[in-house]
């Protein structure tokens, strides 16, 4: 495979990145990689690198074989993601978090979870968020005179209060309090 920049030498450095919800791939030869300052394995920006190489203090990994960032838990690489559109394990979400938000924004129009939280992880903060949201739903149903659905929201609120055990919530609160202060 030829280098994408000089189009002459054989590429020895292979980069993949998700940016703005799209996959970008760049292959570079050793000398072009040197020239572009491709040294830092984290926080690389391919689009910048190709656009304005001088401005970009960027990138990556260098080897003679096509290696790239891989998940330490499952060995999954970014090009595996490109091929399958799926991740290898739950740790991959941390390893490949760069650019993920843009991808999620394109897919879901949101980047942050709202909704059910496993009871063992429930904190007072997200419990309050859940309650606020259900309360919003309830008020909307009352507004539109949909009393059957309003009753359902009321049940969900009651259940959420009942289901969330006090002990873990209190624990999480103290941790969170520490973080926020």
């Amino acid at each position, binding site marked *: 495979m030829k280098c994408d920049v000089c189009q002459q030498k054989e590429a020895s450095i292979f980069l993949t990145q998700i940016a703005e919800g799209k996959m970008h791939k760049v292959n570079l030869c050793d000398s072009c990689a040197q020239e572009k300052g491709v040294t830092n394995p984290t926080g690389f920006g391919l689009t910048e690198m190709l656009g304005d190489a001088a401005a970009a203090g960027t990138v990556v990994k260098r080897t003679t074989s096509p290696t790239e960032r891989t998940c330490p*838990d*499952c060995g*999954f690489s970014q090009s*595996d993601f490109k091929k*399958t*559109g*799926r*991740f*290898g*394990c*739950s740790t991959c*979400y941390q390893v490949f978090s760069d650019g*993920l938000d843009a*991808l*999620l924004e394109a*897919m*879901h*129009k*949101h*980047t*942050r*979870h*709202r*909704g*059910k*939280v*496993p*009871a*063992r*992880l429930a904190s007072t903060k*997200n419990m309050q968020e*859940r309650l606020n*949201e*259900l309360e919003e*739903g309830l008020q909307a149903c009352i507004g539109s005179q949909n009393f059957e*659905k309003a009753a*359902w*929201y009321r049940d*969900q609120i009651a259940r959420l209060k009942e*289901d969330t055990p006090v002990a873990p919530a209190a624990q999480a609160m103290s941790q969170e309090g520490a973080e926020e202060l």
Partner: protein
Amino acid sequence: MKFETLLRKPAEWMRSTGPSHEIVSTSRVRLARNITGHPFPGWGKHQERLAVMGIIRPIVEQLPEMRDSFSEEMTSLNAIQKQVLVERHLVSREHAAKGPGCATVMNRQQTVSIMINEEDHLRMQALRPGLQLRAAFEQLSGIDSVLEQKLDFAFDENYGYLTSCPTNLGTGMRASAMLHLPGLVLSEQIGQTIQGANRIGLAVRGLYGEGTEALANLFQISNQATLGRSEEAIIDHLETVIQDIMESERNARFRLVEEKPAMIMDQVGRAFAILRYAHTLPSKEALNLLSLTRLGCDLGVFAPEDAEIVNLLLTEIQPAHLQVEAKRRLSAEERDSLRAEIIRRNLKNLPEPDFNGIVPPRDSEHE
């Protein structure tokens, strides 16, 4: 529970007798979950899948809902048995094709089915007749709450439940309803309806999910996004849209009866006549004719309770169901002829169609 028992008994929801059943045939909610410390099924080696199945399966089988459940590894089922489960919407087509380390556990009523090592470690679904999305969600969420006490589900504070494919991230929830929309199809408004749903982030698909054709005027509508809104909000939104579509479908049927009574009577009458006397029926033709007969039940041409027979037939004339009935593999021609035979037998006792509800009264015509 043995597979044979499962086969003999139609699933509870196949009769479609729930709320708003004249338009909503079934409601389904699915939750995707994974456990930490193991690769997702699509990436893990088969020993890893076996290990995950070894952890999850006994815990799932212990659920109170799963007393006397059906629990099988996919490799221990033959092709026809697996296809039967697909035709009943109890497992996905993808899951039916899976190798070692993949299993399915489902309850006796065939209303809760849990796929182990489908695309995610756990794909749990609750299926109910009629419009019952909220009830289906509550039941499934209850099961999820029990399982999370014993299984360490992969969860991230920002991303929610972590799934193999980022399209399922967050709630991991897909809620869907199967809508019977002959009125919108006959009045050519269905395209608009689908586009409208797509514009507000809902997906509309055919009878057997992604990439399948809309047969029998059945359309599956579901949420597209899973991240950023709570389960309750997603279901509430979907249900509101379904109510709107139901309203348009009712209006479309009403208008067809008002404006084109001869056309409707002809379509329903012909459909019934063919089903009643045909000796060879390809699947697609049979499904579409059953849909029109079903419309006839809703319009009073047949008794409303006859809708149940028609609903059951929609599943029972599927290829694998036919081969189970015949107890052997059947060629396409043999299937078409057995399909016709089963339909003739089941519709034999239906009374003559009664079109009086559709024909405008004679004296009003002369006035």
